């Protein structure tokens, strides 16, 4: 692994909002193709960390490297062009547009043809085919013409992930893709996530510990903005401090 360029490297990344330090000197490495879960209690700074990685927020301190390149000062759209994609915890779709149009926006995002003004979008057969393939793959077949806002919540979550996959990212950030889903929907989402190409590195925020440990081989626990522990899931699962946070055990030797 030594000579492989990591998909993502965070070097003591911090973000302060006024007096509040939401993310405090977080360092993290994600290798290409790695499945990495990010867990931690509410307010631990998980989503803020995602925003720092994808560029929605700028780090107050520290460096963010994507595929070996320092992107700390780059805006979200140029980071996306370097192979990063994300989903949002609170669904962010294009509500008035059809499912097909939603996915097409993802498909053309990193294609120079997004600037084409003189040709009908639907005449770009390869883009449409690609979008339709994604729609089918994410279990939304037959819903292509439906407006995104008319979809069920479960289908909207699927579309949320489909949208992030449309640009063929090499690093995917999933912010609680399972949140609010029924157990049936949650299982179908898990099946979708399992099928994500093995070459794509995935960083997953998840509240359901079973799900997180089933999906990832490496786990990072965040608490109060700092990394509590990071490592292979077995080590992390056995860690006393982590158990305390999640099981509420009181006792001496708290690492938090």
């Amino acid at each position, binding site marked *: 692994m030594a000579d492989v360029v990591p998909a993502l490297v965070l070097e003591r990344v911090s973000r302060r909002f006024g007096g509040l330090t939401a993310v405090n000197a977080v360092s993290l490495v994600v290798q290409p193709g790695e499945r990495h879960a990010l867990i931690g209690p509410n307010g631990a700074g998980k989503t803020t960390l995602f925003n720092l990685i*994808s*560029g*929605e927020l700028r780090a107050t301190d520290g460096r963010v490297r994507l595929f070996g390149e320092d992107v700390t000062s780059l*805006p*979200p*759209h*140029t980071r*996306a*062009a370097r192979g990063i*994609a*994300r989903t*949002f915890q609170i669904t*962010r*779709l*294009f*509500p*008035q*547009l*059809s499912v*097909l*149009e939603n996915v*097409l*926006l*993802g498909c*053309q*995002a*990193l294609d120079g*043809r*997004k*600037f*084409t*003004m*003189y*040709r*009908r*979008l*639907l005449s*770009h057969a390869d*883009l449409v085919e690609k979008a339709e393939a994604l729609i089918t793959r994410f279990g939304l077949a037959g819903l292509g*013409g*439906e*407006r995104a806002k*008319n979809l069920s919540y479960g289908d909207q979550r699927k579309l949320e992930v489909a*949208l*992030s996959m*449309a*640009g063929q990212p090499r690093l995917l950030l999933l912010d609680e893709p399972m949140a609010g889903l029924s157990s049936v929907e949650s299982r179908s989402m898990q099946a979708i996530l399992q099928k994500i190409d093995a070459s794509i590195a995935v960083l997953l925020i998840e509240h359901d510990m079973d799900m997180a440990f089933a999906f990832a081989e490496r786990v990072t626990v965040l608490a109060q903005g700092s990394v509590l522990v990071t490592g292979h899931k077995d080590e992390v699962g056995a860690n006393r401090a982590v158990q305390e946070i999640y099981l509420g055990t009181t006792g001496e030797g708290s690492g938090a």
Partner: protein
Amino acid sequence: MAERSEALQGWRLPVLVVLGVLLLAGPPLLTSYWVGLLTQAVILAILAMSLDLLLGYTGLPSLGHAAIFGVAAYGVAVLSTRYQLGFWTCVAGGILAGTLLSALLGLIVSHVRDVYFLMITLALGMVLWGLSYRWIPMTGGDNGLSGIPSLEAHAGLPFSGPIAFYYVALFVFAVSGALMAVLVRSPFGLTLCGIRESEPRMRSLGYNTWLHCYLSYVLAGAFASVSGVVWAYYNSFVSPTYLDLTASSELFLMVTLGGPATLIGPVVGAGVIVLLKNVISAYTARWLLILGIVYIVAILAAPKGLWNLRRGRS
């Protein structure tokens, strides 16, 4: 796609056919007063469609769009009356003046959204209006500039008269409308809708949304300039009122009343406003009061605009 196939549902197609026949075949049968109204509606429809690119498609509410239109009209007036330049130079000069101005202002306004966009376009529009009002040596100030040659004579057309002018305006309208219709169905057009729907998501997908908003603003300015050039020839006169806030508000109303993000809606809106304005002005000077009432009724009865009436749930 959902939006497209619904576009001509129900009553819309017959209405469109009737409108098309009226626009194409109506004028020879109408009195010159009505031909005049139809000409105004057709020219302002170009302007309303251009604002629709910004307001309806990109979601950028401009309250200074008439200023771009006015600057293009002044371009024609200045070039034709002060410098006695030829027809195509005046046309190109007018369009270029408006477009370059948009390219310049776009650098500023593309950084802000929503109500801030509204305020900054309003402010810049007022500045331009002030300029047209005060730069007397160039613009003639309050008196405006008159004596723009008639389009038919200036262009050396073999025909003339209100009906001939109408068909020239209709031609420009048809070409501009077709270009904009292609534009909104292109990948670029979908990008604009995406920005309207969720700009943060667009950024995280990899779109430089600033650039797309800028291009949208410049393109809207270019079509507004085309409208301004035809308007200058139609009136053979320009004045600061072309640029003022009332003009921008009426224009805004054309789009919202007609139905944003439809292109056809703003055309209908332009027709309704021109008609109401002229008919009501014949009875009362309180045109703006009536306009306000029309707006309130429209918002209550057809919040998504006339062209979206009875479109059902969605």
